């Protein structure tokens, strides 16, 4: 570059800065100079979006991300992405990117230097703790937090401040998966891995529109079917979708009756003696818990299960009423279809994978339905061997890595439960804090956290990488709560959203490849990426924001990390929590050099199938399996009954409302709607109706339809027989659209065990809007 070029660039940069100051929030810039596709530097990163964790290669030119390709070296996706992944880097360049901190002054958010905003956050935290106690402040993060983000949040709030008010939006996403794993196996996260797909003969998708939500894994499953003749995909769902179109068999059931169907399958397995008896004798014990456990719709709802050990005879007896014929009446699924499902699970020659995601997780009996599907795999011994796998898919890129493994939930520590004195001692030792700092009781789970803000028990919340003003069920109550006097809301994000709209401080975040980090995907794979481009303006990573605030609060000694090496230092510190064969994680240097490594990673070897001594160094050799998570060294079969949904259709509100996602958009759309290709393909939310219902209301495609629940009302264009088709008496609305807040209608009922809300079932009225 000669002096003349340099001068030109300086002038241009100055002009851009000046323009930026005139109109804050909008970036003015000449078209940046970038290289041709063949002159790029390619760097590896896990995808920013779902929990599949595809490996991407990002093309970098002149400090900008300009292209993407699938990483052929990644065993997850082997070079393929979905449409979100291919366009992921465009999410960095929305014109209204937050580049400056904003502070609310006289009712409006005004730009301030980021140091001033960080000072304010620290002083507000100190002020609230001094006045109202340590439990008056909270942090609410996300399964899109990197591992170092979540680790610093936990260390600051649980270790330094001493409150368990730490939650992640993963509570809304996979809390039931966690409690399902914990109650059945005593250890979280899937025992199998994606290689199960390449080995299975049958796939049963439980309420899981995988073609849109986990497209790359779905394609891998279709590929398996193409290669192995006779492979069968069964779509067991409440709504007909693109997944149903690709499945060999599609079975529709009425909402909530999956509980009864799973029990009926178990009933049939026992009746036909399609059981793996040696497996059952050696590796399984039987249990039951409380029934009529409620729905958590009242404030301060509390629940503790009382597990009781039973024997096989008692379990069999409890299942007696779940005959396929009785369950047909409840579920709308013909008895022969239930028997068909049982015959697939019961055939000893068939290897079966069950996949599920939000259908089973966002469920007022979410923990139970996980238990019941595990029961089926345990009765038949189809678990922890290649192709036999009950597989809980994860929604977010690091719901596993950050929320589950780091333990950014009120009840968790990086290793173990807060109620466990050993877990507290370990955390105190690694963090360098007195053990008395770490509170021994869980405090507020997500729904209760927002209720506490509304009530005023909680004064201050710091929200990072998530958009609860679009995602909280019954949003109106919680938005009104956050706006009340005496609440202080800090939001770290990359774009303005309905959540930054109610913030008192907005911190601009460095996103994804603008900083270094790690995510952990659905198959226990940790994936590292380096910083590839500079963040815009004063944007700062969430990790560094937390460190800056911790230092300002006087906790600098606990956060001694250097700017250049902080991610490595944090990782090596955090990794100590997981030493040992059951959880060992790879070193920073190994993570850096490879597209991803599955834990437990022992002596340079990934563990593909846990609890199987052939693959898992933590399992005792000498038998086919060893379930070492529970005190009795067994996997637990639970009897759990069918119980109805929290709110079912009635005369006044005669339709079921189901909500969910679409392939084009990531969650609340704050990133993907700023990617022109994706927004144009799916510009706005809609309501899907069955064609017969549409006829009844005299509604055509595109006509405006009003939905009303006990909590709110909304008008949406009708979509009939396009992306999906709900059965008669049901409607479906995606939640990505901040202009059409469907969660103002949903109910904040949750699974009493996992505290995860049910976004799939509430009652609405449907009318043609005039």
């Amino acid at each position, binding site marked *: 570059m000669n002096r003349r070029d340099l001068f030109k660039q300086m002038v241009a940069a100055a002009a851009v800065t000046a323009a930026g100051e005139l109109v804050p929030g909008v970036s003015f810039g000449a078209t940046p100079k970038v290289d041709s*596709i063949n002159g790029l530097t390619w760097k590896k990163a896990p995808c920013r979006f779902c929990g599949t964790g595809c490996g991407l290669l990002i093309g970098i030119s002149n400090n900008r991300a*300009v*292209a*993407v*390709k699938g990483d052929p070296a990644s065993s997850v996706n082997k070079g*393929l*992405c979905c*449409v979100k992944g*291919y*366009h992921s*880097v*465009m999410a960095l360049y929305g014109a*209204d990117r937050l580049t400056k901190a904003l502070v609310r002054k006289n009712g409006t958010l005004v730009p301030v230097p980021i140091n001033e905003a960080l000072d304010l956050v620290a002083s507000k935290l100190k002020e609230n703790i001094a006045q109202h106690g340590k439990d008056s402040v909270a942090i609410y993060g996300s399964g899109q937090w990197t591992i170092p983000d979540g680790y610093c949040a936990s260390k600051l709030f649980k270790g330094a401040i001493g409150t368990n008010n730490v939650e992640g939006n993963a509570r809304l996403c996979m809390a039931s998966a966690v409690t399902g794993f914990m109650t059945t196996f005593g250890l979280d996260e899937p025992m199998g891995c994606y290689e199960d797909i390449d080995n299975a003969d049958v796939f049963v998708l439980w309420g899981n529109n995988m*073609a849109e939500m986990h*497209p790359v894994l*779905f*394609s891998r499953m*279709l*590929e398996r079917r*193409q290669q192995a003749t006779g492979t069968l995909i069964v*779509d067991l769902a409440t709504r*007909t*979708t*693109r997944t*149903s*179109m*690709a499945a060999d068999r599609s079975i*529709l*059931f*009425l909402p909530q*009756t999956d509980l009864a169907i799973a029990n009926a399958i178990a009933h049939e397995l026992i009746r036909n003696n399609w059981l793996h008896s040696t497996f059952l004798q050696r590796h399984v014990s039987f249990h039951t818990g409380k029934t009529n456990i409620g729905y958590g719709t009242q404030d301060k709802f509390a629940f503790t299960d009382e597990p009781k050990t039973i024997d096989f005879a008692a379990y069999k007896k409890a299942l007696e009423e779940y005959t396929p014929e009785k369950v*047909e*009446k*409840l579920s*709308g*699924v*013909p008895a022969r279809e239930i028997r068909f499902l049982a015959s697939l699970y019961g055939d000893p020659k068939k290897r079966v994978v069950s996949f599920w995601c939000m259908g089973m997780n966002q469920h007022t009996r979410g923990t139970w339905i996980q238990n019941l599907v595990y029961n089926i795999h345990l009765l038949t011994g189809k678990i922890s061997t290649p192709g036999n796998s009950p597989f809980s898919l994860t929604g977010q890129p690091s719901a596993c890595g950050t929320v589950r493994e780091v333990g950014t939930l009120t009840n968790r520590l990086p290793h173990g439960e807060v109620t466990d004195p050993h877990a507290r001692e370990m955390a105190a030792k690694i963090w360098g804090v007195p053990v008395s700092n770490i509170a021994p009781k869980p405090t507020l789970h997500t729904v209760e956290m927002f209720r506490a803000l509304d009530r005023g028990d909680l004064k201050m919340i710091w929200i990072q990488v998530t958009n609860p003003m679009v995602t909280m069920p019954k949003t109106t109550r919680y938005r009104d709560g956050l706006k009340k006097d005496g609440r202080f809301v800090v939001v770290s994000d990359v774009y*303005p959203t309905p959540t930054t709209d109610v913030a008192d401080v907005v911190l601009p975040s460095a996103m994804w490849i603008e900083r270094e980090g790690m995510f952990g995907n659905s198959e226990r794979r940790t994936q590292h990426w380096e910083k590839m481009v500079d963040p815009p303006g004063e944007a700062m990573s969430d990790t560094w924001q937390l460190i800056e605030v911790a230092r300002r609060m006087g906790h600098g000694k606990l956060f001694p990390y250097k700017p250049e090496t902080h991610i490595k230092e944090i990782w090596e510190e955090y990794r100590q929590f997981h030493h040992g064969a059951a959880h060992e994680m790879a070193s920073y240097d190994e993570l850096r050099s490879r597209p991803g490594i599955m834990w437990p990673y022992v002596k340079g070897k990934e563990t593909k199938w846990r609890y199987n001594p052939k693959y898992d160094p933590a399992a005792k050799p000498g038998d086919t399996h060893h379930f070492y998570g529970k005190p009795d060294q067994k996997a637990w079969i639970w009897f759990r009954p069918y119980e109805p949904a929290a709110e079912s259709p009635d005369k006044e509100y005669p339709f079921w409302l189901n909500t969910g996602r679409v*392939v*084009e958009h990531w969650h609340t*759309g704050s990133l993907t*709607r*700023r*990617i*022109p*290709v994706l*927004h*144009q*393909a*799916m*510009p706005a939310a809609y309501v899907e109706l069955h064609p017969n219902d549409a006829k009844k209301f005299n509604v055509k495609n595109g006509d405006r339809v009003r939905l009303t629940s006990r909590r709110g009302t909304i008008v949406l264009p009708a979509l009939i*027989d*396009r*992306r*999906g*088709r709900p*059965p008669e008496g049901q409607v479906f609305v995606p939640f990505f*659209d*901040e*202009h059409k807040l469907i969660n103002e209608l949903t109910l904040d009922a949750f699974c009493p065990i996992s505290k995860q809300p049910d976004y799939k079932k509430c009652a609405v009225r449907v009318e043609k809007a005039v």
Partner: protein
Amino acid sequence: MKRIWRIAMATALMAAAVFVIGHALGSGEREARTPAATNLERPLPILTESGVFERSNKGAFLKDVKPGPGQPERHLPAYYARRAYPGGPPAIPHDLVDDKSMGGKSCLACHLDGGWVPAFKAFTPVTPHPELINCRSCHVHPENKGNFQASTFQAALAAEVPKGAMPGAPPVIPHELDMRSNCLACHGGPAAPAEIRTSHPERSNCRQCHVQGAAPQPLFSRNGGGQ
């Protein structure tokens, strides 16, 4: 005597019928007393969603089927020349096997799976909607080249073959999906016009990467642009 037999038979049949009908009605009532979910319908295809998977079993095979020496490729100008406007049903450029048969037995014999036709020196285009067998309700066979009157009709321009949003990014779908949701029919195999032939027909879930871009929308903006 015969008549008496007939009357007796008829009476017996009537009595039986009354019993059967009565029993059926009664059982209907009994069932109605237990609150039961009516069985849900067997899922029917959603046409715009199902097509993408329809020829997927052929994808791996199509990957290796390429025009050989002496087998000319088709190109987009020829493809559009068969249609009055982009998206219109193509006319039939060859003589008909049988003027009155349904397509299931005649047209689909070639247009279901395609293949090289030495007589035409061309690969047979594959239909994206083989379930519709009354082919000639839309596809006509021009009997002569003259016009009754000249026409001033001007066809819409064909969509440009889209490029990805950045190098390596999957291009959007520039057309509607109704009747054309079976991607591989037009985009896979040797009959596909070279400009729109996919390099990876073995990937069966096309719409995992290629999304709708047929009707450009205003860009998203927080104050109403996404409405």
